[in-house]
């Protein structure tokens, strides 16, 4: 390249100090977490909502639903699953349309940042907030509502893979559903009803087996029901497995359905994700 008229501009041949992939992802994650923590609505909605719900429901309902299992314990496992869904599916499904509408995504696309770095930033944010939120829920539940933490390594492992698969599926679906919203405001209108209906039919607010059969069948198509069921196997006594619709906690099926949703979510992300709004061509 000849640079006759360009004394100062950097020439492409010298990539001076491009940051490595890991460093780029970490900075992006840190930025996303900072933005999340500074946004009061996000923090209150994501972190506070499940705790408030637990306090309210525990105060209203106090009966045993099976020998040695109170409704509160059942509800808490559902709220942990809901919390994981909120931090991934709702959080991304609501915020990405806002960022897209404001032109933040378009702006990133105009930089040399590799596309995957932006997604990595979102994932790191979801993981960090998800861990913090779950820890908070567990602390409150153990302190106030006699929730017993898992007592075997196997149960902790189950907790781990159910959470990882569930959050992965919900993250991918949250990114995918963000493309449905046409404007910043409609993100929440698209995502909130879906999340709320799933909570009602998946055995969060009501004991799953007390729901009409058709409702159970619909819920079984979506991840939340299986996340709740997987977490019940971790926090409720083994004997409760007999109360589940399949007569056991069906962990194999839990893994299968959640993995399937990971694949579906990934395909939807890859085929539908948009960096700009529709009116932006």
């Amino acid at each position, binding site marked *: 390249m000849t640079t006759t008229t*360009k004394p*100062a501009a950097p020439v492409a041949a*010298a990539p001076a100090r491009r940051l490595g992939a890991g460093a*780029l992802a970490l900075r992006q994650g840190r*930025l996303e977490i900072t933005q999340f923590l500074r946004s009061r609505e996000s923090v209150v909605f994501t972190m506070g909502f499940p705790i408030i719900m637990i306090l309210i429901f525990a105060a209203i309902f106090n009966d045993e639903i099976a020998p040695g299992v109170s409704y509160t314990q059942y509800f808490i496992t559902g709220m942990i699953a809901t919390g994981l869904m909120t931090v991934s599916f709702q959080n991304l499904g609501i915020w990405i349309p806002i960022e897209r509408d404001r032109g*933040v995504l*378009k702006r990133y696309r*105009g930089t*040399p940042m590799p596309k995957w770095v932006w997604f990595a930033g979102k994932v790191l944010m979801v993981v960090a907030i998800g861990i913090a939120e779950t820890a908070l829920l567990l602390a409150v539940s153990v302190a106030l509502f006699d929730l017993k933490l898992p007592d075997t390594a196997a149960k902790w492992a189950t907790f781990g893979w159910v959470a990882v698969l569930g959050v992965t599926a919900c993250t991918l679906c949250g990114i995918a559903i963000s493309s449905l919203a046409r404007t910043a405001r409609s993100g929440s209108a698209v995502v909130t009803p879906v999340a709320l209906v799933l909570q009602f039919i998946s055995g969060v607010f009501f004991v799953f087996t007390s729901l009409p059969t058709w409702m159970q069948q619909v819920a079984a198509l979506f991840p939340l029901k299986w996340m709740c069921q997987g977490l019940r196997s971790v926090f409720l006594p083994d004997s409760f497995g007999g109360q589940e619709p399949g007569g056991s906690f069906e962990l194999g099926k839990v893994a299968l359905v959640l993995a399937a949703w990971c694949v579906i979510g990934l395909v939807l992300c890859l085929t539908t994700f948009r960096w700009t709004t529709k009116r932006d*061509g």
Partner: protein
Amino acid sequence: MDDQLAISVRGLRKAYGDNVAVAGVDLDVHRGEVFALLGPNGAGKTTTVEILEGYRRRDAGEVRVLGADPASPDPNWRSRVGIVLQGTGEFDELTVAEVVRHFSGFYPGADDPDKVIERVGLGAKAKARTHTLSGGQKRRLDVALGIIGRPELLFLDEPTTGFDPEARREFWELIRDLAAAGTTIVLTTHYLDEAEALADRVGVIAAGRLVEVAPPNRLGNRQEGLATVSWRTPDGTPESAETATPTALVAELAARFGGEVPGLTVTRPTLEDVYLRMIGH
């Protein structure tokens, strides 16, 4: 491909459904040049520029920007191109310094963030959250993000919309500085004085076509075209004539009046006159 060309466009076309936004544009921008695309709203300025920036796909035509096809931008190409979009992409919860520093990490040859913030006149606002900035200050932040990577080629889409006169003057100084350092600059504007003050050449675009490309003082044959000579007859009636030879006419009038010609003026069409004629008013 001519190495002295930063941008080369032949037969560029783009339609949105039935609406033809760009109807066959040919354009060359030389390295180190300041080029202004001047045109009314809806003329195709933004569509043209966003195709050059790699944001929009074209329907037809050949486009080379810094030697590459912007339809498939790679990170190396991106790091050589600075973009200031028409709309601002807002990072509500972050400070000016945080945003500029974050973006500097994407570019291998990035400038010093503090220096850039100072340079765009946001030094006093470096620690302010971006949502507290005024419209003009947000625009300065956009410019900071456009130049943080020390681009060889800088696109500015209506950069001074919303600026007060003083801010515009300061912005013009910044553009002149960048141009003096060898940066190629392509800006769109609908302000005639901005094009006249900054551009080496102006391309007038109307209804998706490039009507004319010329240095601002030669646009529409401003210097060679007909001049208007006006004067008053002895009884005070205003009189005027359009002529290609105003000097001869003035000499003739001087002879006729035997000295001073009452109310004599000789005018050439202003940039505004030729511009309005070109865009069809």
